[in-house]
């Protein structure tokens, strides 16, 4: 009963925020509303028992998208009229597509139906035998890292590609470490704000600690490489937001961040190649350790480290590039 009430309630919240987004035109309120949208979506994922997905959506929605969006929008984009109804042409086309889709949904299984075909085939084996074969309670992590580990390699490469893309798109691509002289023109005087300084400087170690907890807790509860990478990235970026990007660059220079991005992908790839050299197929961890489960444990631990490294370095690199583009 609680599940149904929560589900329906959150769906209504989601719809109202989506309608609000359709109508607003000012970029700042768009970004704020999309922040609320991602929070409501994350809560809905918790209701639908997708705990890992809620974790990722929360970390990404609250951690990264705000920073990226705020680095791009400017006050002069604020339109005169705050609200506007989309053009009738778009609405008609949208409704047309909607009606077509509605017909498609009539044969779909009901919400929560145990006999739905999706649960009969692959899921039975993953839920049934993943503990003997891989030995990890969190089935999502075992499927993510081992059964479909190659998808996750593709995913890490997607994040790496995004990092490379933003590096290429960086306007003036001087790559040297931040010279002490070049003071960040936009050094916000947050450091001057005693309240923020005292609270947040003590928060950063807490966030980093929580990030590491999530990194290694991925096997037993919700968590894993991606979520940990985003949290660690957010923790490091907090110092940048507090002081300035150039001061953060003196601690963690561009070069190391780019190196970390590339190394994470290589760590993941080399774990797979190690399987090749030991005579098994690519990304087969069973040969890495004495027994199958020991090998799987080691393999999953290593690739999660690779994922965490790439994702956190990419987040920091994104922050540098967007700050670089601004000043």
């Amino acid at each position: 009963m609680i599940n149904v009430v929560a589900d329906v309630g959150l769906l209504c919240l989601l719809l109202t925020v989506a309608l609000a987004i359709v109508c607003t035109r000012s970029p700042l309120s768009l970004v704020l509303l999309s922040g609320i949208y991602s929070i409501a979506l994350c809560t809905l994922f918790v209701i639908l028992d997708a705990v890992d997905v809620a974790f990722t959506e929360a970390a990404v929605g609250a951690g990264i998208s705000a920073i990226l969006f705020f680095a791009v929008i400017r006050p002069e984009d604020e339109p005169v009229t705050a609200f506007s109804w989309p053009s009738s042409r778009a609405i008609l086309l949208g409704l047309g597509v909607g009606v077509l889709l509605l017909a498609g949904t009539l044969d779909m299984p009901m919400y929560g139906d145990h006999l739905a075909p999706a649960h009969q085939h692959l899921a039975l084996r993953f839920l049934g035998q993943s503990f003997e074969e891989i030995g990890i309670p969190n089935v999502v992590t075992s499927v993510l890292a081992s059964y479909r580990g190659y998808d996750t390699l593709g995913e890490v490469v997607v994040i790496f590609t995004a990092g490379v893309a933003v590096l290429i798109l960086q306007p003036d691509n001087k790559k040297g470490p931040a010279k002490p002289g070049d003071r960040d023109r936009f050094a916000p005087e947050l450091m001057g704000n005693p309240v923020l300084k005292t609270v947040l400087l003590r928060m950063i170690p807490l966030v980093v600690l929580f990030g590491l907890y999530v990194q290694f807790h991925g096997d037993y509860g919700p968590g894993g490489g991606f979520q940990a990478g985003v949290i660690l990235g957010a923790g490091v970026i907090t110092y940048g937001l507090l002081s300035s990007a150039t001061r953060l660059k003196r601690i963690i220079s561009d070069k190391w961040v780019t190196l970390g991005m590339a190394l994470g992908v290589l760590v993941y790839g080399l774990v797979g190649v190690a399987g090749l050299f030991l005579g098994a197929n690519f990304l087969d961890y069973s040969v890495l350790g004495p027994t199958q489960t020991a090998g799987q444990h080691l393999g999953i631990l290593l690739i999660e480290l690779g994922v965490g490294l790439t994702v956190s370095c990419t987040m920091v690199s994104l922050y540098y590039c967007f700050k670089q583009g601004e000043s």
Partner: protein
Amino acid sequence: METVYLIVLGLLLIAGLLSIWRAGIGPTRFDRILAVNTFTSKSILFISVYLFATGHPEYLDIALLYALVNYVTSLALVNYLNRNPVSAND
């Protein structure tokens, strides 16, 4: 016990709706920012109470994560506002 959880969740949803209303309508952009902050703290409560209601409190990490990372949005926001001190009559 379940009815209590039901009431709590329902009221939290209504409070969430109110803050969305303020986020949508809010005349100045600071009202919208305020609405985002309040919606986040309500959703932390919602997740925690829901996980308690369905008897799986071990997944509270999500609420903990939100409480932790929630300030990053506001910090980026305040940074943006300081950088562009245009007067608030957007």
